[in-house]
């Protein structure tokens, strides 16, 4: 029953995500959008470094940025379903009355974004490897590390999305951008676009406290082992140590997600927010 409602939620998410009158345009959009994002980054990088694409900083930034697309896709995907169902489709109350586990439903809704996000990440990386000399050697990739890290990251992001979804339940007005705001904020502190060493010393602890930092580092190491060695940030930690830290943080994130969601869910019913819509 849980599995079936999860599958159905994923089906619904896919229907919504792919609701383009023209499937061809949908495909084009899915390719153009991530590449456009990467292009901006590449142009900026090239201006700042005067075109020094051989510096290890380039693959560092390029890959960090590419995988960071998952944050927007999965984390925001989970919490967005609350707003979408409550404000747009006005069905959140019917979902609540139904005998489903709402967290599972919300995560199901985000599966489609995970898939389109994966496609974007893949396209971006292939493009980088083919045209921008991002040094990925297929034979050198540590596929096991990559798969394990990716999976852990998706779990982590889904849990963070649940926490956000709980908070979203209690915020009626203008909460549309909460997900984007959180994703944007974490972007700067997760070593996505620059190594933590670039930050002033007093800001670095924020980065070290962010699980996404370790996740991105693991993904980079699995794809282009050499890059990681170029920056002192996490160089002293082995892959296994990084995995252990990430694993611990996922457990913590799970605790936070369960507690936050339960609390917010309870509060939303106390305050009558489950079917509250904003009248603009």
């Amino acid at each position, binding site marked *: 029953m849980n599995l079936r409602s999860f599958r159905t939620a994923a089906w*619904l998410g896919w229907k919504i995500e792919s609701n383009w009158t023209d499937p061809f345009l949908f495909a084009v959009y899915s390719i153009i959008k991530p590449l456009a994002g990467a292009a901006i980054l590449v142009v900026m990088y090239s201006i700042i470094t005067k075109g020094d694409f051989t510096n290890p900083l380039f693959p560092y930034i390029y890959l960090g940025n590419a995988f960071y697309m998952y944050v927007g896709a999965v984390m925001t995907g989970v919490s967005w379903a609350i707003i979408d169902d409550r404000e747009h*489709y006005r*069905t959140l109350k019917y979902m*609540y009355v139904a005998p489903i586990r709402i967290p599972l439903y919300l995560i199901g809704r985000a599966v489609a974004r995970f898939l389109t996000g994966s496609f974007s990440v893949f396209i971006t990386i292939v493009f980088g490897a083919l045209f921008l000399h991002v040094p990925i050697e297929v034979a050198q990739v540590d596929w096991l590390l990559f798969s394990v890290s990716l999976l852990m990251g998706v779990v982590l992001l889904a849990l963070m999305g649940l926490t956000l979804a709980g908070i979203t339940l209690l915020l009626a007005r203008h909460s549309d951008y909460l997900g984007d705001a959180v994703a944007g904020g974490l972007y700067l502190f997760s070593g996505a676009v620059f190594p933590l060493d670039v930050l002033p010393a007093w800001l670095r602890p924020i980065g070290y406290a962010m699980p996404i930092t370790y996740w991105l580092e693991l993904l980079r190491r699995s794809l282009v082992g050499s890059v990681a060695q170029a920056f002192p940030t996490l160089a002293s930690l082995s892959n296994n140590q990084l995995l252990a830290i990430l694993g611990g943080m996922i457990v913590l994130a799970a605790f936070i997600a369960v507690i936050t969601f339960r609390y917010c869910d309870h509060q939303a*019913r106390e305050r009558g927010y489950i*079917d509250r819509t904003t009248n603009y």
Partner: protein
Amino acid sequence: MSADYSIETESLGRVYRLRENKKKKDQPRELVALSGVNLQVQRGELFGLLGPNGAGKTTLIKILTTLLAPSTGWAKVAGYDVHRETVKVRPLINMVSGGESSGYGLLTVRENLWMFSQFYGMQSAEAYKYIDELLATFGLTDRANTKSADLSTGLRQKMNIIRGFMTGPEVLFLDEPTLGLDVGASRDVRGFVRRWTDENPRRTLLLTTHTMVEADELCDRVAIINRGKVLACDTPAALKHELQQEAIFNLDVSAQNGLEAAHFETLPGVHKVQLTPFDGHSQLQFILAEEAVLSAVVNTLTERDVTILNLTKREPTLEDVFVTLVGRSMAEEEKAGSNGNGH
């Protein structure tokens, strides 16, 4: 406490906190939407909640369907506490709100319904069979593959109503199911509601309405609710029977400036009088203690030179019951309520 109550509430109350309005410091901070509600609905009953807009009907339904926490008291549905045992209550119930257009507009009618059947753990084949049956019943068969965004509001509401029945709930809650439907569609829905409840003695249905006829003709029992309180609860016949001793008259009279309901209110034996001016004439409705009081009414009219155009005695309606309980009609009560809390 009997296990055979499908719905049971005790001292159920709900208070909404209102947002503070800096400009109007004297505004109340809380709104009592329900208070001291004690209800017992038997398994198999078709139960109606009748009351004007703002009476608290939707609030009560939200509590009973686990969407809203009560502020005081408790409620059980199908034997389980709606606040503490939501996981046990939810598989046994379903809910439909009228007068709103909800649903995934990008899905077809059939897809919308199938999706919800999956959330209730139904097998796809069985679900499709039942969905198609219900679509036929509600005259939606030719729209089965239409995107629900392309449906009229009325048809969307029918789709929603099907969603409620489709999952085979033990207790079904319909909040103003015919609100916004045309006469024919309302009749279809009422017919189905009645049949569905009669077909299986395990099914209980609670609906809210502010239509007197709907409560009167459809429901086994009716609770009259106003300003968050249940004022009476019985079969429509018994509620009206209370008024059997009284005489209810409608009088059409020639329009007369200066004629006021107040002129009659002081007459002994006049329980309630309502004056509705029309173009060229006025209508007076009286609830009198007994028929004999009518002569005093006629005298008053004669003194004021008002001609009686038509006089009919009629059977009491639930509207009369409401008027007797509250002191004014549902329409008047809605107006007074909306002035009172600034909505």
